[in-house]
């Protein structure tokens, strides 16, 4: 599950996470996303993004955890309207991905969204989503895992 061993190329200096604190280790485009979550030591609930206080029980005893980098599609929608300011070009899918016993995270799925079905397994992968001011901004996106259909190349 852990994608750390998959590193195939050196990281360029100008890669920045689009949202600070999202990753537990420096993200590399194309690799599995190692997302930083939080777990409540008091009640065990897990969250993404991390919180200082537990949403469920209000405890401040939170610890960082690494979240699974795959899960199943709880639901999705295909967006056909361009959102002003967005780097995503319609059509694309917004997916809610349930990470095993962990939290549900929301992201986009761009390739193969027309084949997407509920409960499909998807991987969370680091991808460059925005180039601005000579920086590459990366985030995690969802990618379909081989099911009945072929895996998409990049």
């Amino acid at each position, binding site marked *: 599950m852990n994608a750390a061993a998959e590193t195939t190329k050196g990281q360029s200096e100008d890669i920045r996470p689009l949202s600070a604190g999202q990753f537990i280790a420096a993200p590399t485009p194309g690799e599995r996303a190692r997302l930083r979550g939080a777990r409540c030591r008091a009640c065990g609930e897990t969250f993404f993004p991390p919180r200082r206080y537990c949403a469920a029980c209000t405890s401040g005893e939170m610890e960082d955890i690494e979240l699974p980098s795959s899960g199943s599609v709880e639901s999705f*929608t*295909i967006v056909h*309207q361009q*959102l002003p300011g967005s780097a995503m070009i319609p059509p694309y899918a917004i997916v809610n991905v349930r990470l095993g016993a962990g939290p549900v995270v929301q992201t986009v799925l761009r390739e193969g969204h027309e084949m997407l079905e509920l409960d499909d397994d998807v991987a969370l992968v680091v991808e460059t989503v925005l180039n601005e001011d000579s920086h590459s901004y990366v985030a995690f996106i969802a990618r379909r895992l081989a099911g009945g259909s072929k895996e998409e190349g990049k």
Partner: protein
Amino acid sequence: MRDVVVLGAGLHRFGRFPDKSLPDLGREAIENALDDSGVPFKDIEVAYVGRVLAGMGAGLSVVSEMGRTGIPVINIEMACGSSTSAFREAYLSVATGVYDTALVVGFEKMQRGLIQIADQKSYQTVMGLAVMPASYALQARRYMADHGATAEMFGQVSVKSHRNGALNPYAQYQTAVTLDDVMNSRSIADPVTLLQCSPTTDGAAAVVICAASKAAQYKSGRLAHVAGWATGSGKYEPTGDSAEGEADTGEIGRLVAMAWERAGLGPEDVDVTQVHDAFAPGEIFSIEGLGLVPVGEGAQAVWDGRTEIDGDIPVNTDGGLLSRGHPIGATGCAMVTEIVRQLTGEAGPRQVKGGDAHVGLIQNAGIGGMNILVLTS
């Protein structure tokens, strides 16, 4: 807590009015509400104002059009639930005896296009996630799989809403549409199509409330009483559900139970309902959350016509957000206005139960909380 009645209500027509200012819109709604109530402005002791996009101090600029009598004018914001929040603050201030008579006003002037719910530079926007109908669409797709509903059942909400809007001279859209029109309008966030999205709207709505013991000096006849209320934000449910904001229907059940307890009534008593249908699936999720139909049966109920004006659980008789329009700060007061018209038998061609409607239910969702109100006559 004292018994409190809604003495009057009034709207400025919802729609697009580029040549009118907020004070123009607000003044007309206030005039209509005061006329309807019989209360002169100088008897108003406090004003609570729901508005979201208007700048600092907008409430005073509107309310002071009627005179400068020295009353507090307090702006309340809870996104799309702002003016039911203003209504609740006003209600509590009268029910507890702080004031006898209060004015509630909601107004908004909106840009065209989808509401921008996050900053343009934010993660949510860059990633294309801050798409307003997406949360409804995500919930709708899961619902279809879990309960065997069809996309047409969601579309039917909009057909019904437009049919009701055509009967409402204050509605933004007053033209009926067919199910084909709805399903063939362009997809925004599948399965939600354009005609399943509430429009952006300019408009204003006002309500005058007073202690029931003081009502007789202003008005006689059937009056709507505030029988119950509840308000609360999304409580985290440790099942792992991470939905936030408007579509957090899990919240409705918890809140409506509090409102029923205060009112001493239950879902079986409801004659007419207003729900937060910012997008068509909202009506289905809401009637289930409110307990008007069992979970999983809302789509079928709409399909079978049960939420029509002549159905057994009429919902959004004035066209709802989808057709009456959704000027976010004004929506809550417009909901109250329609329920008052229904409970006093003044809803004209939209009247439910042959005028024999006595319990009205309102659900208005926002950010920071959802408001439930129960009105009775």
